[in-house]
């Protein structure tokens, strides 16, 4: 047993509060310690060289580095000792920075504490055994959940790299929110023009399979080996036969909500969402179909030229295997009608949300791109009116703690400016447009210039102040706001009010996260592994994030992130085998009593019932699934599970060193 102890100064981070030199010297007194050294920056090249030299020169069999947190550099130092020929698991880190120098002020007391921490580390390292990483076979297929622009980008990148990708999308078509937009800021490119070619690429790519109108029901397994249950929802139309001619939609007598058009208008019970849908297939909304609800009709079956209607169709369940999962489930719009009752709770027809207005501006939308006052639409004898005064209100459902949404939705300032410019374009330059804002956030490339264009070239009037109330009076919507720069209340009589409603995760995000076993925050956004250093991965190995499901963001950022995510997936799946950490639980099957408590408590599904030769069943921990959390170790009633790298004896020695020595 030849132990080497290296104590870091970390500049003044440690040495400013702890006498690194002194305790390094004192460590020589400890049993079995044959080499001690203090180093200014141990993680640096000279520092690591010093460790390797000592291992080779002095034949060290165990190494302790007293420095920062293992979260920072345990991996670094394990690699370092491995490079010198020592098993990397015969290494222990003593945290004398986060656990000592950074939280105490008294030099003498901190030094004493640091020395005790080192003693404990030495006591443990004596008990450690060499461990060898496991290898597991890897499935190279990738599951992308969500077919919006993030999912599409990731899928195309991965497919181009030669991997087989399956996109599971809950609507009948891919495209997501971007397909609903008219133009995109700041270039005012037509959204569908830039997106639909990508959508078609996906459908034509030999490596991409699109499973539309489907949802993920269950995920089992572990990184490299996920088994996923997918439910293909019944559309009551045989998609093998459907040619997307839309005759059924024209002839259907039953009205139904039109979620693609954000309920600005209604669609029919059998519908195709929009003309460039991929796949372009019809589906029946069960709750609105007269055949299913009343037993009469069947007009669609009669008129369909391809004989594709199938009322008997049922949900289909499939099971697939994947090596990695990418979450690209996108966003929903904040349901302002349920919170902003001072804006009329959705009952004032001329008050609409940003996405509803986007559908109105869209040339292939329900009004053919004409901007009308909703209160004048749908009247048989009168022409719908164009508005002369339009008011945009920002931060509806964002930056607002009173509705539980303190965050900024990132895109609304820009999309409001875009919609204001388009309004001037569609209705006329003499339209009066006001934008009520608190701050303008225009951080992307070309964004600030775009805002300036709106204000100068297009004459949009920006008013700094929030709006307190909207109410109807004499056929107009009265906007009661404030102009804080002038220091007064203002009232504007508007023909149309557009609320820049914020971004919120889609309904059911929390439940989906639980199915996939990833973390999510109080709003439903999925949690990244580290906001700065690992924004594309989750803490669940093999599951990655792309797009707005992680946090509100615009299209350029989404596309960039999606490509970044695909490179992470490629990194994971570039080898045929994956190394997994050997610091995992192992069951002593001679003592296991088959109580299955370990299976009950494991959050990852690592322990399994393994059949023995005599027909009995004992617990066995699947090496590649176990994450080494230790819950089963603590719960086993007969103490027959050990956590490699944290054996009971090692821990007890540490405790004794701390309390008895």
């Amino acid at each position: 047993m030849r132990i080497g102890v290296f104590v870091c100064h970390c500049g003044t981070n440690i040495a400013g509060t702890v006498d690194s030199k002194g305790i390094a010297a004192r460590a020589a007194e400890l049993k079995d310690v044959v080499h001690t050294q203090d180093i200014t920056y141990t993680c640096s090249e000279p520092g690591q060289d010093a460790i390797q030299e000592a291992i080779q020169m002095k034949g060290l069999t165990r190494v302790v580095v007293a420095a920062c947190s293992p979260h920072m550099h345990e991996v670094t130092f394990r690699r370092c000792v491995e490079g010198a020929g020592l098993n990397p698991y015969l290494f222990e880190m003593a945290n004398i920075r986060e656990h000592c120098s950074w939280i105490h002020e008294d030099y003498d007391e901190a030094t004493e504490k640091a020395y005790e921490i080192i003693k404990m580390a030495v006591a443990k390292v004596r008990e450690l055994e060499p461990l060898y990483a496991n290898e597991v076979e890897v499935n190279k297929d990738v599951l992308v959940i969500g077919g919006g622009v993030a999912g599409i980008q990731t899928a195309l990148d991965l497919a181009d790299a030669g991997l087989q990708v399956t996109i599971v999308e809950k609507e009948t078509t891919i495209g997501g929110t971007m397909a609903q937009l008219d133009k995109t800021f700041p270039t005012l490119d037509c959204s569908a023009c830039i997106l639909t070619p990508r959508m078609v690429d996906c459908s034509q790519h030999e490596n991409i399979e699109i499973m539309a109108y489907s949802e993920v029901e269950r995920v089992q397994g572990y990184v490299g080996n996920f088994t996923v249950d997918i439910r293909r929802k019944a559309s009551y139309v045989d998609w093998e036969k459907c040619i997307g001619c839309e005759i059924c939609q024209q002839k259907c007598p039953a009205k139904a909500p039109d979620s693609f058009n954000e309920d600005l208008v209604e669609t029919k019970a059998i519908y195709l969402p929009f003309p460039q849908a991929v796949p372009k297939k019809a589906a029946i909304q069960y709750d609105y179909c007269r055949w299913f609800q009343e037993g009469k009709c069947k007009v669609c079956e009669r008129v369909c030229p391809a004989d594709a209607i199938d009322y008997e169709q049922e949900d289909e369940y499939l099971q697939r295997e994947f090596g990695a999962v990418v979450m690209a489930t996108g966003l929903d719009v904040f349901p302002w009608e349920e919170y902003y009752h001072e804006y009329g709770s959705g009952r004032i027809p001329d008050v609409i949300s940003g996405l509803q207005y986007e559908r109105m501006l869209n040339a292939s939308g329900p009004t053919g791109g004409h901007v009308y006052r909703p209160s004048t639409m749908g009247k048989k004898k009168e022409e719908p009116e164009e508005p002369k005064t339009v008011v945009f209100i920002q931060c509806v459902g964002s930056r607002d703690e009173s509705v539980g949404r303190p965050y900024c939705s990132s895109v609304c300032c820009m999309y409001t400016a875009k919609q204001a410019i388009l309004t001037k374009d569609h209705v006329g330059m003499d339209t009066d447009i006001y934008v009520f804002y608190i701050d303008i956030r225009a951080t992307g490339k070309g964004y600030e210039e775009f805002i300036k264009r709106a204000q100068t070239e297009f004459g949009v009037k920006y008013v700094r102040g929030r709006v307190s109330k909207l109410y109807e009076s004499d056929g107009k919507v009265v906007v009661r706001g404030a102009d804080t720069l002038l220091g007064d209340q203002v009232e504007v009589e508007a023909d149309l009010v557009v609320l820049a409603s914020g971004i919120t995760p889609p309904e059911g995000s929390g439940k989906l996260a639980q199915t996939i076993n990833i973390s999510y925050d109080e709003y439903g956004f999925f949690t990244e592994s580290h906001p700065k250093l690992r924004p594309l991965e989750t803490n669940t190995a093999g599951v990655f994030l792309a797009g707005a499901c992680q946090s509100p963001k615009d299209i350029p950022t989404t596309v960039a992130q999606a490509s970044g995510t695909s490179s992470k997936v490629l990194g994971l799946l570039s080898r045929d085998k994956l190394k997994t950490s050997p610091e995992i639980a192992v069951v002593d099957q001679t003592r296991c009593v088959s109580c299955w408590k370990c299976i009950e408590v494991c959050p990852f599904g690592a322990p399994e019932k393994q059949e023995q030769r005599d027909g009995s069943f004992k617990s066995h921990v699947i090496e590649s699934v176990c994450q080494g959390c230790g819950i089963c170790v603590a719960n086993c009633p007969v103490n027959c599970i050990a956590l490699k790298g944290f054996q009971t004896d090692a821990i007890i020695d540490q405790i004794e060193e701390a309390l008895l020595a």
Partner: protein
Amino acid sequence: MGKLAYYPGCSLRHSAEEFDSSTRTVLETLGMELEEVPDWTCCGASPAHMTDHLLAQTLTARNLRQAHLVSEEMVAPCPACYQREKSAELEIHADADLRAEVNGIMDRPYSGEVRVFNLPELILERVGTETLRRRVKQDLSQLRVVPYYGCLLGRPSEVTGEVDSEQPVRMDQILEAVGANVRWWNYKTECCGASVGVPKKIIQQQLTKRIFEQALNAGADAIVTACPLCHQNLDMRQAQVNSHMGTDFHIPVLYLSQVMGLAMGFTPEKMLLAKHAVDPRPLVRGALEKAAEVRAEEERKAAEKVARAKARAEKKAKEKEDAEAAR
């Protein structure tokens, strides 16, 4: 369900006598036993809490103490008194130091745990819409009203108990249950000016003018309120608004309890409608008459339908007979 302590407050005693009387009548008819808080005194309303916090809480605590002599539950129909008494209830019961301070300047201490109700809350909790529906004797379906909550029956929701302070629903539920034609409007909780109508009249006039406009916009003929100060601003001062703002409003303002009373069969006289500045009696009479007409018309149409069906059946029978006879 024991006795309820009844705290009228200064307004109900005189200038809002019709609110007091109709509330007592309705609550007692619905089976509640009321006893006026013995030796009750003014809750302090706005002037107290705008002058000194301890003063405000003590004036209200005194009434809670007096109420406790009668019951553990107190109803304060005036929303301003309710807010004062409720805020005292919430603060004093939770903060022992404040209770001690308050008790220190009263003649006798308050040691109870009285719960304070506001009127709509009491009605919905103790009576409920089902019972109200069953007690309806007069048809108010042609009386088009908007419920005006004012500031203090909606906000803040921690004190009033309404789920959403911008869209309170209790008055709507009660009015619908007694059969009135309740119109939706977005002006339920916009301030009428409250007591500032005395020191700064122009504020109150501007605000009530808007309320009248919104009520008419919503298709209402009358405004229903449950606050004596709102009632005074809307009813007593309606003529002032007309003369100073150049308008010509003639909108009766009814108390919630009066509408309930009328639905339950009490006469306009019993509900003291004559005390209002803007006389609601013609409107109420008209609404009841119209409702009777509408009902009569419906009955007539139904009878006609039955007669027609009978005639058809008879015709068919005769045709069958004739056919038989021809063979």
